[in-house]
């Protein structure tokens, strides 16, 4: 005991002798204070300069401009909007447009990416090669170039309305966009919708019951086919029994343009095509790596305990592959959402195009506008990554 006290005493004495700024804790505090001072000084200088510059240009800072009348039209509005509404409303229109194209793009890119990723692992030599060529070509060409290609070289080179290309099912494709029949619900269609909801609820209940029964008795129940019958076949039956209460309004050529139906504008189509084709090439690589990342022994073990090929894939390989796939997949979804801001280059009225483009030019409120834009994307990223962290914790491998 005495020896230890002695040693401790000696170290303390040595520390006392060394100048205090050689002590790591003291240094850390000094470094951090210096960093804070530098950063605060930098921000102060920036804000001071900005304020001075804005005064000189007679721009009032603050968000008062949001309530002023926008006075410009937006070509695609999914929520009610006209040019007499406010800048704030225009912001919402842009945000909705961004979310719509990002949401649809994510779905399309995921489907295409999974198909191509699985095709790359195909035993069929030709299919695997084709998938490789797709990935290597698409992901090595800038997205903006692909967007220009789809918009200017493909969609803008289509014939005028009078020489439209026909799309099977009553649609038309021309330089003004894709015209599709729009569904018009008639009396009684609510019943069909309600049947779908009931079908979903019923199949969830069947799923829970089947799981409970399997746990108790080991007997399995064809949940998939039952659900399919409940969600698809039952509503279809009701639909036919009620005399098909869903009509379609078909687009028709009147004068120089089509009337009726719904139209997907070329800007929207080009952005959707470009984003999903580009992101799919990255998703394909993630899917391939995920499936290859599941060790061969897992599948062999699954077959050895008597599971069929399909079961071993569905119950053993895919759940483990998903664990590898999901984190990078999320970052691709975020990339797609951020890349949707390239809409500004082809004139699709997304958040960046409407808000950081038109509104910024009209009001000159650069600081506020850019900060809000960044804030929106940052919130989307942070919410998604918070959700993913939670999801990952649930999915993470629980080791013994």
């Amino acid at each position: 005991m005495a020896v230890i006290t002695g040693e401790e005493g000696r170290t303390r004495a040595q520390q006392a002798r060394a100048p205090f700024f050689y002590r790591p804790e003291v240094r850390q505090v000094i470094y951090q204070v210096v960093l804070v001072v530098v950063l605060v000084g930098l921000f102060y200088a920036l804000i001071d300069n900005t304020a001075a510059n804005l005064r000189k240009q007679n721009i009032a800072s603050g968000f008062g401009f949001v309530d002023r009348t926008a006075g410009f039209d937006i070509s695609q509005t999914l929520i009610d909007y006209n040019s007499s509404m406010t800048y704030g409303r225009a912001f919402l229109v842009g945000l909705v447009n961004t979310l719509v194209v990002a949401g649809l793009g994510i779905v399309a890119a995921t489907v295409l990416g999974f198909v191509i990723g699985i095709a790359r692992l195909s035993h069929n030599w030709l299919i695997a090669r084709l998938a490789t060529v797709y990935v290597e070509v698409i992901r090595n060409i800038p997205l903006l170039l692909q967007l220009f290609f789809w918009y200017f070289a493909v969609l803008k080179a289509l014939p005028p309305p009078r020489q439209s290309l026909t799309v099977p099912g009553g649609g038309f494709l021309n330089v003004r966009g894709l015209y599709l029949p729009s569904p018009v619900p008639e009396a009684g269609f609510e019943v069909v919708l309600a049947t779908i909801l009931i079908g979903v609820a019923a199949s969830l209940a069947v799923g829970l019951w089947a799981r409970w029964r399997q746990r108790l008795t080991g007997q399995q129940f064809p949940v998939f086919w039952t659900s399919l019958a409940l969600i698809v076949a039952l509503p279809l039956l009701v639909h036919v029994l009620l005399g098909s209460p869903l009509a379609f309004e078909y687009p028709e050529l009147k004068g120089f343009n089509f009337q009726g139906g719904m139209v997907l504008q070329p800007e929207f189509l080009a952005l959707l095509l470009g984003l999903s084709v580009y992101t799919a090439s990255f998703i394909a690589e993630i899917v391939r790596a995920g499936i290859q990342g599941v060790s061969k022994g897992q599948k062999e073990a699954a077959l050895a305990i008597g599971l069929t090929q399909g079961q071993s894939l569905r119950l053993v390989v895919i759940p483990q592959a998903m664990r590898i796939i999901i984190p990078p997949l999320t970052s691709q979804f975020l990339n797609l959402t951020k890349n949707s801001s390239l809409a500004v280059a082809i004139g699709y009225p997304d958040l960046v195009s409407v808000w950081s483009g038109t509104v910024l030019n009209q009001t000159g409120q650069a600081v506020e506008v850019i900060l809000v834009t960044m804030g929106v994307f940052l919130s989307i990223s942070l919410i998604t990554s918070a959700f993913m962290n939670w999801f990952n914790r649930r999915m993470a491998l629980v080791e013994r």
Partner: protein
Amino acid sequence: MVADTDVATEVEAPPRNTVGPIAWIRSNLLSSWSNAVLTVLGLYLTYQVVSGLIHWGLLTATFTGADGSVCTREGAGACWPFITAKFAQFMYGRYPETERWRVDLVYILAIAGLVPLMIPRVPGKFWNAIYVFVIFPVIAFFLLIGGAFGLLRIDTALWGGLLVTLVVATVGIAGSFPLGILLALGRRSKMPIVRWVSVGFIEFVRGVPLITVLFMASVMLPLFLPPGVTFDKLLRALIGVSLFSAAYLAEVIRGGLQAIPRGQFEAAEALGLSYGQRMGLIVLPQALKLVIPGIVNTFIGLFKDTSLVLIIGLFDLLGIVQLNNADSKWFSPTTAMTGYVFAAFVFWIFCFGMSRYSQMIERRLAAGDRR
């Protein structure tokens, strides 16, 4: 005897070939019905794409002409004279014709430095690196901008085409390197404020699109500076791109730092090295070598993203192609398509080459681990 003949007739057919082209086709293309259907579909798709490309790019293409009128006939394919006429613009932008040798010289000097640096077998890597990272940038700066040593000063507003693409990408990655390393070290620091600042910067930049960063650099940066101070549009874009890629690079380098065993840090500490010595002499050389593929991938991403500078009014390769597509002298239905195909091909060559290189490095590094 009777039994013998029975046996003879029951002899199985010889086994199928397992080698040779026919067996290869059977096992790789026609192993089952569904596989055969896929093969037929794949063949059809390949035929469509390849024949379409040949039809458009060769058979119906125009190869000579002085303006767009030669490409306006019905069913015309690629308009190649557009590319040959505009080729110099695509490469140099509006860089004065008499001074373009300077750009070529920079390319030659860059290749002379990069090729031996990238081939692992060539000795003298240290001096080679000094040349590429210290001497070459200085020479390139004076050659491109001029205004000294009797060279005419060329305003950056005249730069364009592939020159801008390469300048933005290389300066962007080189400029982001020091900040990226600092941020990566900061994120792993024990000092809470340093860590928060690094994490905050990295997550902020990674959470927003490059466009908004470029908008900020082009619209907000002039506001941040004292009144009267302005600077070059290209420089503004370079600052934006460097800050942006620094955040991504920091994450790549952090991956490398995390892969270095604790023992290396501890051994360096035990030798009495200071923090700077520990990181500069022991940890970073190993960590950076480990993440060369990641750095190359970041560079590929940055190279593709340089095309975004056209949104803030700079003319990189894509920007200049887009500008020339609108040239009324070359107006024809296929001009735009031809221009994009050309630009896509140039971008593709660079990116594909770099990704192949990074895969080779990855294999070499992995080979070291396998020993």
